[in-house]
């Protein structure tokens, strides 16, 4: 380890501080709202507050558990051998990421709610009568937990699989030499790798779940997050919403700390010493089959329901989709997604480098860049509007405010993916490069970025997909007269016109699915040559 920090570290730390200020701007606006109006706000009664908090925690913990069980099991099963079949499955288990949770919730609700499609089919087939099966159990915490947990399972699968594949197989060779059984080797060697990665990922899932609006709203679970949106939607007075956001932000900050502990620090893996990890479970083929088939459900269920809605005749005439408008919206969405992903990825280089090489202040600023996740989207959107109108009124029209809001919403994720992409660039690369008398800029462009490139590109695609799925900021800030797919989906869905929402939803899912499949297929962690 070099004693003097590379100059890039100073630059990246300074840039991180600027970005961190931008990211916390909406939170400051939010808090000043809360403080400024505290005197005239009736705090929600403690009974309601504790119910909301309880539901938020229940949803977050439950979704994290379900996602960890599914994603963790998938990672253990799918990383044990190589081969193209497994490679296909590895793509399939990640694909639910392409479907926004609000579409999953909309489709599940249409299928499983009382008198929904499933009950209707059963009744029409003579297998049941109306109301005799407990479809009403669909609503409430258990349903929400299962749907959200399944939708977010890839968030656990990806880092756990990466952790399993990153570890050197020489450890297992050593274990075999010392005569450890499979079970003992699993408990003593594999679990210590899986647990921190899974715990970190579970914390991220929980963080996402407490901020989620669509799923709890559809499942009729009042949470802190739905209460915040209903207060923003319910009165011009935002102080109540601001107050409710504070526990949300504290919770998220706490969860991100846990996630950070679970995140990989460094790796000494060189590509040549990796090979498929030989973990064998007894009777694994049956488990394998069931689990892997189960992995298709979160993907096929929403897609089938959307397909069903697509072929429905439209009764009210509201569902007639203006194809020209849809194509325009698709291009607008795609353009925004690519622009946001590019800007967010470029911006994330600074905090990511600061996280890896910066000093304490730089690392702290970089952490702040990851906290934007916890701020409700509408808060970010309104803060950006106020800031633009004050600082740069010439940029207030058009796409700029939306782009800025989307970048702020995506930056936390991009910072994480870019920082992970920089992992293989161990400090010794720096030292070697400095010995070769390269300038910091040369180190960055000739050493760091080329090594990190696959991960950065994957992060870029993920950022684009996240932007495609974003709803609250896009809804409020898209320029009047130009639509995005998210808007085209939300508008009819809010009126219950699912048939009209189905086609734009289908297009959005396809736009996200294809690049996600490609990136996962070429993921850098798979298919290294056997030693």
């Amino acid at each position, binding site marked *: 380890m070099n004693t003097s920090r590379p100059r890039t570290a100073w630059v990246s730390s300074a840039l991180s501080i600027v970005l961190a200020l931008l990211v916390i701007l909406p939170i400051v606006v939010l808090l000043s709202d809360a403080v400024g109006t505290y005197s005239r706000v*009736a705090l929600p009664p403690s009974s309601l507050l504790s119910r909301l908090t309880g539901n938020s925690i229940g949803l977050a913990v439950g979704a994290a558990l379900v996602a960890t069980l599914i994603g963790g099991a998938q990672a253990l099963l799918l990383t044990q051998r190589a081969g193209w079949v497994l490679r296909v499955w590895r793509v399939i288990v990640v694909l639910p990421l392409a479907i926004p949770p609000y579409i999953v919730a909309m489709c599940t609700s249409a299928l499983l709610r009382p008198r929904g499609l499933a009950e209707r089919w059963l009744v029409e087939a003579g297998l049941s009568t109306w109301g005799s099966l407990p479809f009403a159990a669909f609503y409430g915490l258990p349903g929400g937990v299962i749907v959200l947990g399944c939708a977010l399972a890839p968030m656990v699968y990806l880092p756990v699989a990466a952790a399993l594949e990153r570890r050197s197989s020489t450890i297992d060779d050593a274990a075999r030499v010392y005569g450890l059984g499979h079970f003992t080797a699993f408990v003593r060697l594999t679990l210590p790798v899986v647990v921190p990665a899974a715990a970190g990922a579970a914390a991220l899932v929980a963080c996402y779940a407490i901020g989620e609006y669509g799923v709890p709203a559809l499942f*009729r679970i009042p949470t802190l997050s739905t209460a915040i949106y209903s207060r923003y939607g*319910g009165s011009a007075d935002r102080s109540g919403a601001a107050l409710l956001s504070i526990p949300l932000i504290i919770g998220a900050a706490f969860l991100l700390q846990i996630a950070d502990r679970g995140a990989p620090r460094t790796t000494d893996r060189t590509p040549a010493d990796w090979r498929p990890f030989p973990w064998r479970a007894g009777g694994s083929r049956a488990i394998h089959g069931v689990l892997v088939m189960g992995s298709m459900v979160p993907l096929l269920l929403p897609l089938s329901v959307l397909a069903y809605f697509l072929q429905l005749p439209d009764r009210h005439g509201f569902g007639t989709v203006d194809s020209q408008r849809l194509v325009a919206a698709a291009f607008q969405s795609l353009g925004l997604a690519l622009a946001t992903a590019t800007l967010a990825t470029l911006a994330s280089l600074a905090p990511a480098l600061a996280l890896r090489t910066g000093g304490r202040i730089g690392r702290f600023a970089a952490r702040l860049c990851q906290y934007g996740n916890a701020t409700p989207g509408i808060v970010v959107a309104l803060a950006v509007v106020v800031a633009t109108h004050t600082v740069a009124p010439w940029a207030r029209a058009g796409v700029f405010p939306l782009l800025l809001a989307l970048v702020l919403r995506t930056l936390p994720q991009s910072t994480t993916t870019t920082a992970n992409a920089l992992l293989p660039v161990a400090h010794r690369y720096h030292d070697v490069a400095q010995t070769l008398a390269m300038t910091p800029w040369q180190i960055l462009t000739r050493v760091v970025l080329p090594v990190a490139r696959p991960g950065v590109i994957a992060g870029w695609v993920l950022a684009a997909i996240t932007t495609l799925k974003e709803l609250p900021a896009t809804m409020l800030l898209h320029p*009047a*007269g130009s639509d995005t797919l998210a808007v085209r989906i939300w508008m009819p869905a809010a*009126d219950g016109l699912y048939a009209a929402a189905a086609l734009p939803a289908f297009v959005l899912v396809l736009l996200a699915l294809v690049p996600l499949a490609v990136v996962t297929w070429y993921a850098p962690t798979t298919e290294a040559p056997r030693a």
Partner: protein
Amino acid sequence: MHRLRASLPFVFLLITVACSPAPRADRVVIYSGRSEAFVQPVLDAFAAAHPEITVDIKYGKNTELAALIAAEKSSPLADIFLTTDMLVPLGAVENGIFAETDIPGTAAIPAALRDSRGRWYSVTARGRVILYDTDLVTAAEVPQSMLAVTDPRWRGKVAFADASNGPFQAQVAGMMLLLGQERTTAWLQALVANDTHFLASATDLRTAVGNGEFAIGVANHYHYELQRREASGNHVGIVFPDQAADEMGVFLNSATVSIVAGAPHRSAAETFAAFLFTPEIQRLFADVNYEFPVVPGVTITSGATQIDDFRPAAVAMDRAASLAPTAISLMQAAGIP
């Protein structure tokens, strides 16, 4: 080749920026809390009548768009604000975000349905009613008063909107005026104590009542008209409540239009606003959602209830609006999410 590939994202960025709409002279920018299905027919008619004016519209929730207009106050982008809840413009007039106007064709609108200084006008009105599932409840059993839905026989069988719902807030504010705060609070607490369900979406509510998930639901009158026209789950009935002489009457609310203060396209905005009060458009705007036209003499053609068919509650909406923040706190304090 490598360079080309690396620059692709920037090309997309440029395309995105270039695609954002350029300012035009004959243009009107609308922020609409009323959803597309119920606005697009009017926009189509406007395009036919005024081909020289381009309409650019952004849809969203009433209060979020009001917050956006307030945030843009220093240099407004919107010309017209359409809402589905009278409380929204009433609550925002003091911010100075709406222009004072005198829209042609609005003089005959009842005074309770427009602002005396022309900062907002009702375009169509709707009533707060009781829906019921006709398979579960007979017309004889169904409560005839809002105060009766807290009866223990309906425990767990009633659905309301949640505390974010504008018409529900307006109803509670109106009840505070007519019954006093104490009785209103007691009624709210009785609702919660009776295991009433509070749903986030009005569409969810009417579908749920139509499908027998709840025996009774409180919603706007057009939700009945929409639900009974659904392919399934259409066994719904309607009660215009509190019609006895000593009772409250039906709470009215309305969809409104305002011109934004400092609107960049003021004259086009006035043309659009005036267009909404021509008899054909009044009928069209009401017909698409089975609402009541506000210009006297215009009746809806769809064969639904007319505004003269029931007795409305005698509530001054500006006074109700000033009570709205208290109403919301009462609802939340009672435990309504």
